[in-house]
């Protein structure tokens, strides 16, 4: 058996096996439990790296669950696939890699962060399920399966957000998220059912090959876009995000950031690969641009006035998602004309993908830094902190890297991706980069405030005993810091090696269809 052929299956199997084995792990001692957590997260990461590398040359990996052969998409002369399919191209492999890295970093961080709490069995099971759900969302090539993975990651996240069940705020945040999320899930199911009723198929490539441009398709597409925009935290459907991100344990928030990116992946896949004819160059593109601009601006405005560190970062997440939606909206607008694609469309898509990857790392790192401050001081209120840079130099250093990256300061990676978005959106209308730049300035102001409030100033008497956080937590943050620095130091290499292939995969959606449907 050639193991590399089965990588797409292993990607979901490993975290699922981790979740299934947790009743054993719960009875282990501390060391074995930690080794179990890190081993399964590490194996998932290795699989994701291998997958990502094998899609770089433009190959589309297809895996048929239960097939005579893993590559037999159309058995016995069928016209469209009926089995559960995984389909991973260069665009899909990027969020997969980000999720696996964030999951690994969150696992390292949680070893010490969650050490003194009970309920490890449940924590581990839900953590692995959430990882499996998010990875499955990016790997699947089947709409119904996508819904199933959305539900797996959502239900696991409800439990993890309310993990500290004695905290009313955590239970409230989880309940709020659950309520809104379930309504969204039903709408998603309704849209998928509509498409199934119309075409007798739920395979993404088959739908892409058959989809027409009637009212039914427009309604289904509108519902899917609305649901996924909600799941990635776009304004005005953002209300769950600050609460959820603030109340979840920080290792979980780190993973939640990338789960929202899986929803963003789904949104882009629907617009670019399944309904490119409907979405390109028209209302949908402008809708994404409008959602992006509003998310960027209102997100950062709400963030600036916050005094609670994780809540502040939650509002910044809305703002950052706005940048990506803006970039993808501009790319979609250009997709209607081949000339526009070459002039500014490819740059916009490249910027959007680059920013999505950057966001996954620096935002996850910021949440881990916030978790470290909470762990060390016992508060998340910025007004009560101060002078912590002396006692927590490593955390302070890594926070500076993440804050500079999110604020778009050169030479950090956030600057590169934002610059691509400014340049490309200028071609559509000058007001778009203007709003994006103002947002960036406000982001910088906000993070200067956080750094000054938490790390600078005179040491406070009640924090005399505060020391640097344990090595496990530092290791989790270090993984994400190294990724942020690598993306900052070698943006050209990452762009030509990774992001360009992803842009090609999105612009030429036929390659996604051909991988499953053959020469159609």
């Amino acid at each position, binding site marked *: *058996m*050639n193991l590399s052929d*089965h990588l797409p*299956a292993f990607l979901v*199997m490993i975290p*699922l*096996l981790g979740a*299934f*084995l947790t*009743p054993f792990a719960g009875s282990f001692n501390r060391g074995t439990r930690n080794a179990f957590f890190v081993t399964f997260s590490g194996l998932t990461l290795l699989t994701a790296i291998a997958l990502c590398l094998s899609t770089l040359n433009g190959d589309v990996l297809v*895996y*048929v*669950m*239960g*097939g*005579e*052969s*893993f590559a037999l998409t159309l058995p016995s002369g069928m016209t469209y696939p009926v089995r*559960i399919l995984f389909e991973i191209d260069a665009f899909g492999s990027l969020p997969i890699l980000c999720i696996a890295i964030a999951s690994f970093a969150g696992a390292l961080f949680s070893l010490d962060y969650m050490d003194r*709490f*009970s*309920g490890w069995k449940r924590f581990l099971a839900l953590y692995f399920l959430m990882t499996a759900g998010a990875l499955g969302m990016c790997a699947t090539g089947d709409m119904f399966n996508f819904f199933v993975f959305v539900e797996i990651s959502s239900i696991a996240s409800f439990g993890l957000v309310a993990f*500290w*069940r*004695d*905290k009313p705020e*955590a239970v409230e945040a989880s309940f709020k998220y659950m309520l809104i999320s379930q309504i969204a899930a039903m709408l998603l199911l309704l849209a998928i059912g509509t498409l199934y009723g119309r075409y007798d198929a739920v395979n993404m490539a088959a739908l892409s090959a058959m989809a027409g441009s009637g009212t039914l398709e427009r309604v289904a597409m509108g519902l899917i876009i609305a649901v996924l925009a909600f799941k990635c935290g776009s304004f005005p459907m953002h209300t769950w995000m600050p609460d959820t991100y603030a109340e979840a*344990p920080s290792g979980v928030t780190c993973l939640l950031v990338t789960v929202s990116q899986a929803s963003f992946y789904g949104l882009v896949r629907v617009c670019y690969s399944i309904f490119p004819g409907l979405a390109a160059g028209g209302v949908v593109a402008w809708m994404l641009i409008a959602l992006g601009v509003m998310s960027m601006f209102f997100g950062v405005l709400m963030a600036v006035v916050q005094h609670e560190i994780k809540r502040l970062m939650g509002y910044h997440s809305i703002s950052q998602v706005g940048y990506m939606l803006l970039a993808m909206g501009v790319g979609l607008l250009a997709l209607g004309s081949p000339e526009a694609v070459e002039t500014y469309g490819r740059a916009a898509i490249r910027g959007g993908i680059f920013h999505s990857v950057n966001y996954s790392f620096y935002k996850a790192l910021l949440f881990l830094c916030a978790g470290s401050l*909470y*762990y060390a*001081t*016992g*508060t*998340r*209120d910025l007004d*009560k902190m101060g002078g912590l840079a002396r006692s927590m130099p490593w955390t302070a250093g890594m926070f500076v890297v993440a804050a500079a990256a999110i604020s778009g300061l050169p030479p950090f990676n956030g600057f590169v991706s934002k610059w691509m978005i400014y340049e490309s959106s200028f071609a559509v209308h000058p007001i778009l980069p203007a709003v994006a730049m103002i947002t960036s300035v406000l982001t910088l102001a906000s993070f200067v405030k956080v750094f000054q409030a938490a790390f600078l100033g005179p040491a406070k008497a*009640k924090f005399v005993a505060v020391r640097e956080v344990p090595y496990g937590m530092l290791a989790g943050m270090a993984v994400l810091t190294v990724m942020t620095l690598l993306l900052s130091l070698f943006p050209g290499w990452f762009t030509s090696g990774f992001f360009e292939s992803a842009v090609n995969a999105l612009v030429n959606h036929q390659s996604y269809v051909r991988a499953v449907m053959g020469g159609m």
Partner: protein
Amino acid sequence: MKPLSVIVTTVSDVFAWFMIVFGVYVILNGHSTPGGGFQGGAIVATFLSFMLVAHGGKRFLAWVNGGMYGLLEFVGLMAFFLFGCLGFPNSFFHNSIAVAQGARPLSEWLPYCGTISLMNAAVGFEVVGALSLVVLYMYSSIRMVDTGAGMGGERGHDRFDR
């Protein structure tokens, strides 16, 4: 939750067992008739709900062993995973032990439809365990809210905000 009348408990004592038999039937015939592991497992799991409603919470908690249902769930999940792995090297979930029409089975003990019915049974185990635990935990949480017993005081890393 208080016990109901003698009529209800007597009828429940008789009828609840039929739910188990019916649930197992639905699980075992899932490959050829409507139903399967999830549906049959859900029917079997109604047994605990019957017991709780008819006999009341006190007797219910004395009877139920949460660990046993946890074990059922674990065995079901692991069996499902292993039956899926039987499909290698063709593909995950491939039905490699299904018997073609007219061919001889590998063993008299293996079902002709292959892993489908085995996976139905695995899902059945899992769902019986999981849904029974859901009933148990939902009832336990009602008691927790009423009495405060079982609350661990784990409010995260809060120290100064309390």
